[in-house]
């Protein structure tokens, strides 16, 4: 059997296939980047809304708490299917790419919201009191005191989540998006050995995930030391 696999290799690694796989990798990265970054931004808004004081903000707070607690407990595959069915029920010609991005977004919001909330709450209450005592508005306190310090706590886990999501995008192959896993299935259906196909696909995922996760580790180390944090902030006046 090994011999047959070896025979398949030249055909498998043909130019056409390589181009296809390369494009599929691009699709995987695009899905991850767009979905996760959009999700992060929406999560940010959600967390800010949740922190607003006053009775009128109560429904927002409730909605945002419920949303996070529910969508952190549903598997991504189920979320993807739900998004697929709901969107297709209303917009029958929605592109699969859009559906996948929306699903990733919804999932990412639930996970990054907790990271963001933790980061904002990590800034010592005492500094916030000092700002309040000096008549800083809530917005000014957020922008000038809390956020500059919260970034260092938020970014490493947020980046780690996004890099980790590269692997989770494999599931959107189930709704027919032309990402890496989908192409892998295609090639396997064409008759190429499962070992060859999925071994290669695994290595391609590895090639995307591992370097980026090392970068994430570097980022975390850099943000942890206060000196580097400062040179990083000198570029942005408070």
């Amino acid at each position, binding site marked *: 059997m090994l011999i047959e696999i070896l025979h398949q290799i030249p055909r498998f690694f043909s130019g056409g296939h390589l181009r296809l796989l390369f494009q599929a990798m691009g699709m995987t990265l695009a899905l991850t980047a767009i979905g996760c970054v959009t999700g992060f931004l929406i999560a940010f808004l959600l967390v800010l809304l949740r922190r607003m004081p006053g009775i009128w903000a109560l429904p927002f707070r409730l909605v945002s708490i419920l949303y996070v607690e529910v969508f952190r407990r*549903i598997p991504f*595959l*189920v*979320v993807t299917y739900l998004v697929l069915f709901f969107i297709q*029920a209303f917009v029958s010609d929605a592109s699969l790419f859009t559906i996948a991005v929306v699903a990733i977004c919804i999932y990412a919001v639930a996970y990054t919201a907790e990271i963001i909330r933790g980061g904002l709450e990590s800034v010592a209450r005492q500094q916030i009191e000092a700002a309040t005592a000096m008549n800083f508005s809530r917005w000014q306190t957020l922008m000038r005191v809390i956020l500059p310090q919260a970034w260092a706590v938020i970014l490493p886990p947020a980046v780690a989540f996004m890099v980790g999501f590269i692997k989770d995008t494999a599931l959107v192959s189930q709704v027919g998006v032309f990402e890496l896993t989908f192409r892998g299935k295609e090639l396997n259906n064409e008759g190429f050995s499962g070992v060859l*196909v*999925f071994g290669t696909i695994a290595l391609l995922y590895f090639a995307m995930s*591992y370097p980026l996760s090392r970068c994430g580790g570097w980022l975390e180390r850099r943000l942890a030391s206060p000196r580097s944090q400062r040179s990083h902030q000198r570029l942005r006046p408070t």
Partner: protein
Amino acid sequence: MNYTFQFGVALQQLPGLLQGAIVTFELGLLTFWGGALIGLLGASLKTFGGPVLRRFAGAYVIFFTNTPALIQIYFLYYGLPDFGIRWDSFTCTLIGLTLNAGAYLTEIMRAGFISAHRHEMEAAETLGMSLWQQIRFVIVPHIAKTIYPALANFFVVILVMGTSVGAVVGVNELTGQAINISTENYRWIEMFVVVAGIYVVLTLIASLSLALVGRWAFRVRVKIF
């Protein structure tokens, strides 16, 4: 939009779905314990092993944490038949997920090993405990208490995310059952909304019970919300 929701139909199918939930639990439990054994072995290799063993365990962890579980399962399900090994979808999912979980659990356990302070062992030694006693009464409880929250959380994660992957290759766990039933009654949206609800309930129950066990057995506070 001309789609009328009929949740009644979906709720009628609950028995079938609950059967799927049982398979989800089975898969989750087996995966967790299998993965924990691998994790223990891997963490031991990485902490106490020589350079070769450490490298080997390290490579295993790095490989399985940077490749998708689905691809690992596909490899077993579609690749092994080339060598005459035809495992059914449940077995492939189980083995794939276990190997995947083992990698993450290696890191969790290793963190636990590292957290054990030499000071505690020295103190135990001065109290006259043998090495075995030290391990049993001081080290193991300390490590268990340190890693319990991470383990509990990981179990819920495997339950929720890990097992649903099996549906892709045809395992009749909760998601798989939802697909099976939906292909017959065409109530996809309702079925999946109900299934989402079941997952939320399942994970809440699991988290709560594990938190209670943690509080009672280890006096560890585990965060649910």
